[in-house]
């Protein structure tokens, strides 16, 4: 089992969610985050004062997948979130030790 964490452009969230649903991913967790990478920030001007905004808004999503689905899930996210411009984000993959469904107590891949 793997935990996939992706940081993407906020307006790409719906496309990524659809792409993941299509390959059979059952659930994702989404957080609104801020950060910077190579894209860097931008400047805002209020009357005479100029401010550099370092941290840009992004969306972070977390998906737990069985091993069989990992490759296709990564491909789906990568394809759906790509614009080709700087700032498209990153995907991180972690190995996942255990999953427990709280309601039933199921564990392992059947709990995903």
């Amino acid at each position: 089992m793997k935990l996939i964490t992706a940081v993407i452009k906020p307006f790409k969230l719906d496309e990524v969610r659809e792409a993941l649903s299509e390959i059979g991913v059952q659930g994702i967790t989404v957080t609104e985050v801020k950060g910077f990478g190579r894209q860097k920030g931008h400047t805002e001007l209020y009357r005479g004062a100029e401010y550099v905004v370092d941290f840009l808004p992004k969306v972070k999503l977390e998906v737990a997948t069985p091993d069989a689905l990992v490759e296709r899930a990564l491909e789906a996210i990568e394809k759906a979130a790509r614009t080709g411009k700087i700032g498209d984000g990153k995907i991180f993959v972690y190995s996942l030790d255990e999953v427990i469904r709280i309601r039933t107590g199921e564990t392992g891949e059947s709990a995903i």
Partner: protein
Amino acid sequence: MKMLQNLIRALGLMLCLALLASPMSQALAQSPAVAAKAESSADAKADAKADAKAEEKADAKAEDKAQASDPKAEAAPTPPPPNKGDTAWMLVATLLVVMMSVPGLALFYGGLVRAKNVLSVLMQVSTVFSLIVVLWVIYGYSLAFTGGSPFIGGLDKLFLAGVTADSAGATFSKGVYIPEIVFVAFQATFAAITCALIVGGFAERVKFAAVLLFSAIWFTFGYIPIAHMVWFWDGPDAISDPKTLESVTAAAGWLWQKGALDFAGGTVVHINAGVAGLVGAYLIGKRIGFGKEAMAPHSLPLTLVGACLLWVGWFGFNAGSNLEANGVTGIAFINTLVAAACGLLAWSFGEWMSKGEPSMLGAASGAIAGLVGITPACGFVGPMGAIVIGLVSGLAALWGVGGLKRLLGADDSLDVFGVHGVAGIVGALLTAVFAAPSLGGAGIFDYVANTASADYSIGTQLWIQTQAVLVTVVWSALVSLIAYKLVDLVIGLRVSDEQEREGLDVASHGESAYRL
């Protein structure tokens, strides 16, 4: 420190007590008259009507004779009752100016500060407004709008003594009166918004008690004398020949005597407050992190809502300053409309060209700058003059919050000087230019000939306006300097670094605006 805070609270309490005492003292002062009225009405009701007419005739004849024999003894004829339309308009205008402060200015300023300080600014504007309204009726009106010296009025109307529902207030037209009490209320809102405007200069770092004490001192020694110097006169009714014109003028305020034109408060309100705010920004010092940390406005929609309330309220401010409802009121109205639009366009296009993007904050600020610019001119210039004044004011204020601000090096947090000071000065000077009849203006009204004066010199008037501007700048700066120093000694101007970082909402008022 605790003791000093208690002192301020005690002063507030004393003020409340003085308030309680004032109606009593007024009641005492009026009681003989009331008693006399009651007696006469009880005794002489029956034959009063019959006698009254005969008496009036006799009185009138006697007055005529007295006037003929001795022209100096001016028998004051009883003024005609106020016109209901004028009175209604002035009440509405007063209400509009109230709306400019609460909530207009409060929201305009509130949106411009960081989220941790929004309540402190709303609170400062509302409380200063309330405080000044009270001080105005206690002693402000008397010191500003009664005769005395050319620099300050007297105490004849302390606690509004003698100002009743029947008191007549002069306008700018002979034989036209409004209830004096309505004029008192109208002017109260001007004094209050002027003091509230200053808050923008030192927002986000000042002690609440310091704001209140400073406002009371500055109102008394800064606002009142300038209002008296620029606006006080006895009204046009006594003027019939050059001699009476001279005597009426001699009894007026110093800058009025000089012929300074300020229709609705370019000097009295905007330059005055702008300078006081700038001096405050210098003396209180920059906000922690100024120039390094982001201090972007926390809610521009709030700022636009506030700006629009100011915008709409300004029609009461400017057109109301004609004190009656007639054609000149209409002129002031359309000039206000046009200048605000031109200010917005000038700032937006100026910003678009120089910075690459026209911002919403710029548009709102431009409209305010245009409104400030037209304020001293609104009843004197024509609509085409208003276009130029609006455009120049918008561009000047754009420079005021940018190039000039960097030049001055003060952290005038919400640009009181950059917008109100700069556009106020531009407007006061351009009034001299566009009041000229040759440029579509109304010129100067000659109350002897009862028509606009034929000769108008732009140069002469420009010099008079310049003097009025300089007097206001110097006087306001001087009073502000002393007032801030005094407040600093007594209670201290600035909150602690820790409180400033935490935000004034929590540190000074124990509440926060938004729960996330």
